[in-house]
């Protein structure tokens, strides 16, 4: 198994003085606070977490799930383009034709 959530919680407690039982505070620390810390600290946190990779957690962390997060929108999730020449020729030609057809 990957690094258990308890290892993340312990790292947030050790480096950020966060309550390891408060998983939302732990998530917040990793998202908001850790990016502002010096690279050496981030590297140390990574080291701590990798060290505990595969560990069977000695205590349970009660998961907290966000309530009713909305479905993401398609508009903000565009399909990732392949490199230009990776597309099949038929699709490339269609794409060139549609660009040429666009009014300037």
């Amino acid at each position, binding site marked *: *198994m*990957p690094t*258990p*959530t308890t290892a*993340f919680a312990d790292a947030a407690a050790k480096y950020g003085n966060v309550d390891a039982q408060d*998983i939302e505070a*732990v*998530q917040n620390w*990793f*998202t908001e606070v*850790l*990016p502002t810390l010096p*690279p050496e600290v*981030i*590297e140390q*946190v*990574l*080291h701590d*977490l*990798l*060290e505990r*990779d*595969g560990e069977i957690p000695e205590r349970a962390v009660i*998961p907290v*799930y*966000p*309530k*009713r*997060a*909305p*479905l*993401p*929108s*398609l*508009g*903000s*999730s*565009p*399909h*990732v383009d*392949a*490199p230009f*020449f*990776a*597309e*099949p020729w038929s*699709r490339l030609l269609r794409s060139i034709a549609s660009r040429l057809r666009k009014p300037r």
Partner: protein
Amino acid sequence: MGILRKRRGVPFARRAPTESGQDVPIHIAKMTAPHVMWWHSHVQPIIDRDPSRADNGWNWMLYVPFAELGGRVLMRKPVGYTVGLSDPESDRFVPCALVQLLGRVPALDEHDRESVFVWFLSTAPEEALTSIEDNRISKDQIPRRLGTIALDVAVTHSLNERRFGRTALYADERGGDVLLQWYRRRGMTVLPDEDKLPRGPRRLLKPSDGRYCYYTVPAAIEASKELDSLR
């Protein structure tokens, strides 16, 4: 075709097969916070009810920011992708699989070459897709082969980023032999446990134990070709 694929890259999958026999359109998007938030709100609770799953207890809300940050500090070019069903009419995107990659790590078989490493990969159980309030997907429209498509995302990224298909991962212990066999069937090679990992923290902290798998360049190209009908 193999040479062209290595040189030009390859498009991501755009369709997935279904039980109905008809393919459904899928989108491969860069992973964003709303994708992860929705996953942790709707999909992960269902995964967490099944202790037999390797991704039981995962917390993407922690993995994604950390993989991004840790990867950037170590210059590993982290990138996350979401495989999802697209519904242009309602402008909705339903995440069906998440893949977190490190885009630049030493290859397991040739340490002086660069490879992609799959850090986390998870697919939505059927129940998660048929139980979405106000956007139910019927059982026969559920995309199949999501694991294969998600793994193909990593190989496609590797081909398109000039890693020539080299892709590696660690098969979670909880998946047991079944998971290892699944990766073997996809054409991956298992690194023998006596072989050393490339230099780096993993060599010390998570050494080779017979569960690291990798694609050689020819095997990756073969695996990629197998999904051409879905691109």
